């Protein structure tokens, strides 16, 4: 939240339609993402009631659990879900590229990776719990399941974990993705309703944003996007249908539950694909691809781990694992913020407002300026930038610029809207700067103290070296019989 976004919200109210808060798209959008809309039985943590899933807007697959309290039906649902999801995921493992890493072993990376879209963060939680409740199941023993069930469980766990990683696009939620690009005239709490959010962004013909949003709050017109269902629907439609199935588990009874769930899922299915269209219409930010590369790498490593027969993810991280994970998330968060600012002048504007960045026009340049004598003589071009922004940077501060990759400079002086900078990086190795590396008078430039070179890894010990005060080195996680036989009611 920033003053700019707050202002955009006020405008949204005045104009009756959502306002953009970015100029580019900051998430990756796959050519064929998989949309997954799960519904959960009210009152249960992870009992699936049904789902709509697929990669083709015209052909959703409807999965139904006619009696969600029945564990066999629940596992049958998971197996059916696996039939849809696993081939989609595994399809990306077929084509890989070899990446040569400086000072490291070359490694393989999948050319593309799967992308799953769900309506909202609650759906991500549900994906995680469904993964947790299935990944330890066994194909033999007291409650055997189909082999695809634990495998799907591991993948769902992976996707849910990965979605906590800022900037990752492997599992996206529609409400967050849309909310990152548009400001509406309602509060964040109300934005959590996908139909209302889309109402503001893309109201139907002849309607205003607020009008569409208000209509969207009526669960009869726009059923909730899950995983929670409308209590009215539960009591009046679903309840009787499930009871009918209990009394007589016939095809017709299943069809009746399916029909009921279809009415709840179809509107959201359409909203999901409408969200995809809206996001796709935005030009992609320059660094989105870099982040997707990281996602592809992560996906490839997990795929390898699964293929090599590694154990399912542990129930809980060990002490060092948890700390490393947190540190990793923090780094990713910081880096994601910086990258967005570099990719998007409207995001950068937030930093200009706080004085951590400024934009202006070059008024003077001394591209061949040097410092030092003899062997330590260095090329240090000077430029002067005239800006209207309130600059809160002090001499000596290192700054970067979104206009040139690898470019760095140091603030020399700030006087009356004139900033003098000394360029320190990105001019090439010659005695004169390589062409285009020093801004010329008249050019419009942006500089900021935000930079994306974070220490690669905080000083955490390897998991093997966990101090005994933190529980000692973790045991490799071996799921026990207890995990596999965990009661499921």
């Amino acid at each position, binding site marked *: 939240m920033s003053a700019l976004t707050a202002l955009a919200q006020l405008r949204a109210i005045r104009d009756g339609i959502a306002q953009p808060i970015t100029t580019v798209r900051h998430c990756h959008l796959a050519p064929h993402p998989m949309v997954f809309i799960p519904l959960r039985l009210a009152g249960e943590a992870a009992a699936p009631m049904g789902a709509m899933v697929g990669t083709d807007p015209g052909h959703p697959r409807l999965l139904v659990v006619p009696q969600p309290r029945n564990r066999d039906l629940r596992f049958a649902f998971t197996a059916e879900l696996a039939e849809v999801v696993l081939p989609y995921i595994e399809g990306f493992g077929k084509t890989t590229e070899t990446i040569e890493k400086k000072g490291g072993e070359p490694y393989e990376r999948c050319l593309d990776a799967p992308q799953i879209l769900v309506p909202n963060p609650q759906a991500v939680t549900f994906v995680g719990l469904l993964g947790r409740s299935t990944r330890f199941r066994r194909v033999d023993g007291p409650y055997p399941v189909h082999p695809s069930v634990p495998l799907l469980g591991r993948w769902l766990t992976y996707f849910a974990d990965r979605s906590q990683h800022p900037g990752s696009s492997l599992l996206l939620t529609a409400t967050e993705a849309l909310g990152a690009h548009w400001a509406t005239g309602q509060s964040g709490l109300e934005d959590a309703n996908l139909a209302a959010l889309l109402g503001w962004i893309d109201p139907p013909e002849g309607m205003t944003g607020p009008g569409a949003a208000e*209509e969207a709050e009526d669960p009869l017109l726009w059923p909730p996007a899950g995983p929670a269902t409308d209590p009215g629907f539960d009591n009046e*439609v679903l309840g009787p249908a499930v009871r009918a199935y209990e009394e007589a588990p016939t095809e017709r009874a299943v069809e009746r539950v399916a029909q009921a769930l279809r009415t709840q899922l179809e509107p959201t299915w359409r909203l999901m694909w409408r969200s995809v269209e809206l996001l796709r219409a935005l030009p992609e930010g320059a660094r989105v691809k870099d982040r997707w590369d990281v996602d592809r790498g992560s996906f490839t490593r997990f795929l390898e781990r699964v293929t090599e027969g590694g154990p399912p993810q542990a129930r809980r991280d060990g002490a060092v694992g948890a700390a490393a994970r947190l540190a990793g998330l923090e780094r990713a968060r910081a880096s994601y913020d910086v990258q967005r600012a570099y990719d998007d002048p409207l995001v950068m504007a937030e930093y200009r407002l706080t004085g951590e960045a400024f934009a202006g026009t070059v008024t003077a340049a001394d591209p061949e300026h040097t410092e030092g004598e003899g062997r330590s003589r260095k090329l240090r071009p000077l430029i002067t930038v005239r800006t209207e922004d309130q600059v809160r940077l002090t001499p000596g501060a290192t700054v970067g610029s979104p206009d040139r990759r690898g470019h760095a400079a140091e603030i020399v002086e700030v006087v009356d809207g004139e900033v003098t900078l000394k360029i320190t990086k990105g001019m090439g190795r010659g005695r004169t700067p390589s062409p285009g590396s020093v801004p010329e008078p008249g050019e419009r430039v942006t500089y900021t103290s935000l930079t994306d070179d974070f220490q690669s890894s905080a000083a955490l010990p390897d998991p093997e070296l966990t101090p005994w005060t933190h529980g000692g080195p973790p045991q490799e996680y071996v799921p026990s019989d207890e995990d596999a036989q965990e009661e499921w009611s």
Partner: protein
Amino acid sequence: MSESLDALERRITGLRAEVRRAVKARENSLARSLRGDLRRAEKAWDEAISAEEPVPASHEPEPSLLPIREQVHQALALLGVPAAARLVVAVNDAFFSRALRGPQLTSLRRDEERSFRSDPYARPYYLCAALTDRLSPARGLLADSTWEPERRVLGPLSPRVDFLTSTMRVAEHLTRLPDPSPAALRLLSRMAQNIPGAVESFAPADPAIAIRAARAELEVHHAADTRQRAEVAARASSQLSDVERLFGAATMSTLRGAC
């Protein structure tokens, strides 16, 4: 029939559109009444589609030839102490017909009381209440009228004592069976889990160990419970009428007697 389904579907679509229009026009009360119509139409659709179904063959387990009261009696005899409907059903599931359902037991005590009132002691036994220390019927518990009075009254320790006793009885019964059902083993495990030392975590319960552990805890409560029960039973026999001794006294100003 399917024609009316089609008609209903058309009506539902039409109503949806009307609700939408009314909401848009901010005609709140119209929207509300239309929504009611919509719900009703959806309900009618639900009913119509269910009515089309042929009534399927029942998937229930073989109905028992015994009347319900006798099945309950059978379970109570096994347990030997007053028990809640849930436990009676679980015991029936584990050892007997598997045909008993919780809801069938709700009016049992009332029916038995009516029968006793109209023709006292006509039956060899009645399924009656357990009495609290206020001599009122304990909620939800069933007992056997042929048991001695001390067994049919409760002190504060009695729920625990009876739980331990019934666990022992279930375990003993299990040891007598050549091939106990999985449901029976599950029942014992579930009960034994709540008794210290009666079960090793996650392993199925061993009847002998369960009996030993239950008996050990029972030792702790036994004397006090027996004393308290004897006191309540004495009060019951001196203060209550025949029917009250079996079905409990109404607490002051309860309306129970009236209905």
